[in-house]
């Protein structure tokens, strides 16, 4: 530039506070379109759902024509509804078993093993695991249904050994959908941890080895603390993904038998669209959003704590 460095700096210093705020505001201009888009397509539906949860909006009948403001009635109904607590509990079981324990631990395990194994094995395992992840959710759901159903692959395999299988989707619905979600989602955690582990400096690990640290000690005291930030990020992402799982459960069990696998998204869908009670359905969805926010807040604190 033609302007000497010192001059441009001094001119910057000479700007009035108003000019500076204006400049700062102008810098926001490029992100405005994305904020507007997010507002329209993310925030507006959430806000509408929140609003509708305070009304008796319905698909048919008088309430479809003139929805009435009912205050907290829908939320009060959850307290007396026998299915809601069960559903909230099943959602927790589903998230903890399939995401926090299943996908997270299995993903980390596979990633650790892959760093030790040879290139060919690692890429073969990686391909197999990722294959289930790249399937569209509906295809993965049908595949899992075909695997666990009465005449499905699992029972045919068991039949080879002379074992008479049961209808897994009916007898163990939660276990079936948890396993299906672990199968489908582990790839994501694996990829995150592969990337994180490649950032762990070799020399620290080797120094610990010289000091006589065993394998598990190196994992617990060296590797895990270093990738703590990645663990928290991964947990946040898979928790929120798993909270929102609908297609997988709907296709495999439809929430049954007798609500034994009705998680909150399934319950919200049933209430809003099967029974036409949009007010109650959106109230359940709003609670689900709140649960997601609580999880999110906890993980954000973890991430902050991870960065000194």
């Amino acid at each position: 530039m033609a302007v000497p460095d010192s001059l441009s700096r001094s001119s910057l210093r000479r700007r009035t506070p108003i000019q500076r705020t204006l400049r700062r505001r102008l810098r926001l201009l490029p992100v405005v379109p994305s904020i507007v888009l997010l507002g329209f397509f993310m925030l507006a539906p959430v806000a509408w759902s929140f609003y509708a949860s305070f009304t008796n909006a319905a698909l048919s009948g008088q309430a479809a024509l003139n929805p009435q403001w009912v205050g907290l009635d829908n939320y009060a109904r959850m307290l007396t509804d026998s299915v809601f607590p069960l559903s909230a509990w099943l959602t927790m079981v589903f998230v903890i078993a399939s995401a926090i324990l299943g996908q997270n631990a299995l993903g980390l395990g596979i990633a650790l093993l892959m760093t030790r194994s040879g290139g060919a094995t690692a890429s073969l395992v990686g391909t197999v695991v990722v294959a289930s992840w790249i399937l569209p959710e509906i295809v993965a759901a049908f595949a899992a249904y075909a695997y666990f159903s009465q005449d499905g692959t699992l029972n045919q395999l068991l039949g080879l050994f002379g074992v008479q299988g049961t209808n897994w989707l009916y007898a163990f619905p939660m276990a079936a959908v948890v396993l299906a979600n672990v199968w489908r989602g582990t790839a994501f955690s694996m990829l995150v941890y592969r990337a994180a582990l490649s950032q762990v400096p070799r020399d620290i690990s080797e120094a610990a080895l010289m000091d006589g640290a065993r394998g598990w000690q190196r994992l617990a005291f060296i590797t895990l603390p270093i990738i703590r930030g990645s663990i928290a990020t991964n947990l946040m992402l898979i928790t929120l993904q798993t909270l929102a799982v609908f297609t997988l459960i709907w296709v495999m069990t439809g929430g049954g038998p007798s609500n034994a696998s009705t998680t909150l998204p399934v319950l919200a869908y049933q209430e809003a669209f099967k029974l036409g009670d949009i007010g109650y359905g959106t109230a359940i969805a709003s609670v689900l959003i709140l649960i997601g926010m609580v999880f999110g807040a906890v993980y954000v604190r973890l991430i902050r704590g991870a960065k000194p």
Partner: protein
Amino acid sequence: MRRPVRIGAALLGVVGLLASAACSAQPQATSKQTIKIVYQKTDSFTALDKVFQDAKQEFEAANAGVTVDLEPIQANDDDYGTKLALAQRSPDTAPDVFYEDTFKVRSDVDAGYLLKLDSQLASWDEWSKFNEGAKAAGRGDDGSIYAVPLGTDTRAIWYNKTVLQKAGIPVPWQPKTWDDILAAARKMKAADPGVIPFSMYAGTGTGEGTVMQSFYELLYGTGSSLYSESDKKWVLGSKGFTDSLQFLKTLYDEKLSVTPADALDANVWKKVFGQWLPQGKMGATVEGSYAPSFWQKGGSYEWAGYTQDMGVATFPTQFGQDPGGVSMSGGWTLAVGAKTKAPDLAFKFLTTALNKKNALAFDVNNSQIAVRTDVASDPGYQAANPFVKAVSDLVGVTHYRPATADYPKISLAVQQATEAVITGKQSPAEAAAEYDASVKKLVGDAKVMQK
């Protein structure tokens, strides 16, 4: 809630008006108009699609410049209802003419989805051909007509004669009481443990099928009912309700029906029609008068032998008390959307789709009970299948669902009660008590009565 949409639509409307005013100097000789028809079509239900394809040709030939836009929805009954209701929430997506379940008419009239047809019907000379009972199917709470019926149906016991004969049960078979059914089913089980003797739907998987083709036949045969039309209240705590659940429990506990796992599969009815009955693996089931539509030529499970092998019997009352039998009726209608821009054109299309030729084709292909007197007396209708007379006679002992706006939720509560009983989660008494509690919660104490 829908205000932005309304304002948007209003603005569009204003712009449209201004535009049309600006152009009004030039008369539009070839005005292009489109009417949108929404209906259900599945791999096993194509009869209506055929009727609409024919009606479209007829109508477009008779009305130059009009395009009929057929938009079939591929979904089961439940999902079809949901998709239709969602489409009706906005004038942009609302259909002009649509296929509407009779039990949804009243609540959809309340929702303002259906156009009042009184004045148009008054000038339609063929309206007098519809029988009076059927006309009521499209009546709203205000007494006006909002929908025109395509056909109606009844429910009966459909049994495979060969399976019964193998068990030494003489055909034609007509059980007189519930115990007759159990006795016959046990005989079939003893003769061949591989057959499913007497299947009755239960659980939430089969949806309305569970109540229409199973539970209500039981409940209305005990002398009790779901809803008191005179008091406009839901009936709770009746012995008939518990007895009906107990009967289902007996069927499932003794393995006289399908397994509970099969019962909860939403597609179990496809196996009933497509495999078990034709292959002689099921003795009997309770199904609609439309059953032959699956087996006849062109049906989804073609089976030429059904005319000889199958028999039909009236579902008996609990102890054989009067009137000796029980049946349930439903049926579907055509209606005009309240938000249509061309009400007269839409109604004209409706009358084309429901003229004698098309109504006859639909009733025959879909094995419906005719609601037009000229169709009912047509030889082609009466000869459609050997069971037309038997199932039409059941109109004498039939019942209709209490189609109030609350009904879908009540129906689900009944389905849940049956599911809890057949899966062994609750005893019939416990399930009935839970049903009572949930109905009270759903409709409020003022709308229930103890019996």
